[in-house]
């Protein structure tokens, strides 16, 4: 389509396939997005990370033409989401936050209908549906009504529906929420395969490990604003320092241990009562681990673990976002 109309192509800057420029969205007094900008190069997996209510779904909806921004623009493959919606929709596949599959129809019927709506012929739609069912291990359940599916199967079918049109850009809003760890990892592999075939993926997630495992780059959103962007390792470096991690033998002593180490660093320790462990952000060269060992020793607290770790994405997340609603 773009070839027929070369002027559209000139709108794309470089090889960015998704580009949001200063997008703001208001719902009444709620500022769901404030000047959010995002550039995703072709072939990348971009993770959109942020606490509940940060504006992830809102941004996804703008990019997939479901919602017109209050101000700002977004381009997909050079097409403007508000003015060239149909062109945008013909190259994207969207799986929304809540599985939008039809309970009364079979899995196969669901996919064939979406295929027909991607303007595939009957036989192409059938073939695509078959292929997708196969790839998502749903072949056996294909001819059962979706209401008999488990939550995970439904989620996979929903993802499948976004794939039947062989989209250039796949937009997934929390694709693995509610999936068991094995299926989640299978889906990650599946998405990685798609990316090697050239698909660009924009996905929102609550799971930091997912962003870590899958995303080439991460955009961190909080309260409607983009607050950080970069590769997972760059983000970890950004907050610098390390984590002091310790666990006490006697779980009753973890609170006391927390009080002692809090005096060493300049951050609040994060306590996990169940595991009788805590972690705290410290400067890398502060000698914190030695001080902690001495303080704990003189207080007579026995530890089962004491170590310095590079920060996890969780810490990046917790330190950079203030948490929404």
């Amino acid at each position, binding site marked *: 389509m773009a070839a027929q109309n070369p002027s559209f192509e000139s709108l794309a800057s470089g090889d960015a396939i998704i580009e949001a420029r200063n997008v703001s969205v208001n719902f009444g007094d709620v500022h769901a997005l404030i000047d959010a900008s995002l550039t995703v190069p072709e072939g990348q997996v971009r993770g959109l990370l942020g606490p509940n209510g940060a504006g992830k779904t809102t941004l996804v909806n703008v990019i997939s033409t479901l919602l017109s921004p209050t101000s700002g623009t977004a381009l997909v493959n050079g097409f403007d989401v508000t003015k060239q919606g149909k062109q945008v929709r013909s190259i994207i596949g969207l799986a929304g936050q809540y599985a939008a599959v*039809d309970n009364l129809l079979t899995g196969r019927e669901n996919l064939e209908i979406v295929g027909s*709506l991607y303007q595939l012929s009957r036989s192409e739609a059938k073939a695509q549906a078959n292929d997708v069912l196969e790839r998502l291990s749903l072949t056996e359940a294909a001819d059962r009504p979706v209401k008999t599916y488990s939550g995970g199967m439904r989620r996979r079918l929903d993802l499948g529906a976004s794939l039947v049109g062989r989209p250039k850009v796949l937009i997934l809003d929390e694709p693995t929420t509610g999936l068991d760890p094995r299926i989640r990892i299978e889906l990650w592999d599946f998405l990685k395969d798609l990316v090697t075939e050239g698909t660009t993926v924009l996905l929102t997630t609550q799971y930091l490990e997912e962003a870590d495992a899958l995303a080439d780059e991460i955009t961190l959103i909080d309260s409607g604003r983009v607050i950080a962007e970069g590769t997972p390792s760059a983000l970890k470096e950004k907050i610098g320092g390390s984590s002091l991690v310790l666990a006490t033998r006697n779980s009753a002593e973890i609170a006391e241990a927390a009080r002692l180490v809090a005096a060493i660093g300049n951050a609040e320790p994060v306590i996990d009562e169940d595991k009788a462990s805590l972690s705290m952000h410290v400067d890398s060269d502060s000698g914190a681990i030695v001080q902690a060992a001495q303080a704990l020793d003189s207080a007579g607290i026995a530890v089962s673990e004491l170590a310095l770790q590079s920060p996890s994405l969780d810490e990046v997340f917790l330190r950079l976002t203030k948490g929404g609603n």
Partner: protein
Amino acid sequence: MIGFFNDMKTLTRRNLLRLIRTPEVLIFSTIQPVLFVILFDSVFGGSISPLGFDSYTDFLIPGIMVQTAMFASINTGIGVAEDMEKGAIDRFRSLPISRLAILFGRTNADSVRTLAVSIVVVLTGLLFGLRLTENLGSILLGVVLSVLFANSIQWAFVLMALLVRSLEGVQAVAFLPTFPLVFAASTFAPVENMPGWLQVFAEYQPVTTTVDSVRGLFFGSEVLEASGGSLATSITLTVMWIVVIFAVFASLSVWRFSKN
């Protein structure tokens, strides 16, 4: 344009498939008019003998057919609201289709259902002594006119769903306009016997003109002429109503749907 028709066909098929998969709903929507025929025929049959008609059953069946079609059109609003709540509409809106096809797919499928139920009403009537006097073409035209009228009303409920945005909301609001339209009409009893203030409304409102048209098409214009009407007048008014109702509500729905 070809795209629009293809999408509409696909979405109509999707909605019809959903209908077939809920036989409970289908059976209930057939039992209801049959019950109404039995009840109204037994309750009013003895006391109402409408001018020009051989029996109250003859008078009643066109009324029940239109009433059933009216009530069934509420389901169109419920269907749209349900599709919105379950995310189906968002999914369709994210596909490269004509968005109008989403709404037309809904009203088309519901009209097919209304057609089926209307035929059941007429067949039930035959069991209860209905005696159609006009030819088959005229009778089918009566059924189709009633379905077209229901189709235009469906658009009012599409708009309602798009404004109210919830299934419960549609259910709560839908009966408000439906009841006066169905009961303050010639549906179950002749308009002449109503109090004067109501007659003015009842005589020209769309349910009455549709029911009267169907009566004329089922039994000949004479049955209307007996009380000072005519088939030509009723049909003209009905077609005008259908065009106006469709034009207003379909365009408002389309405007509302493309707005967000």
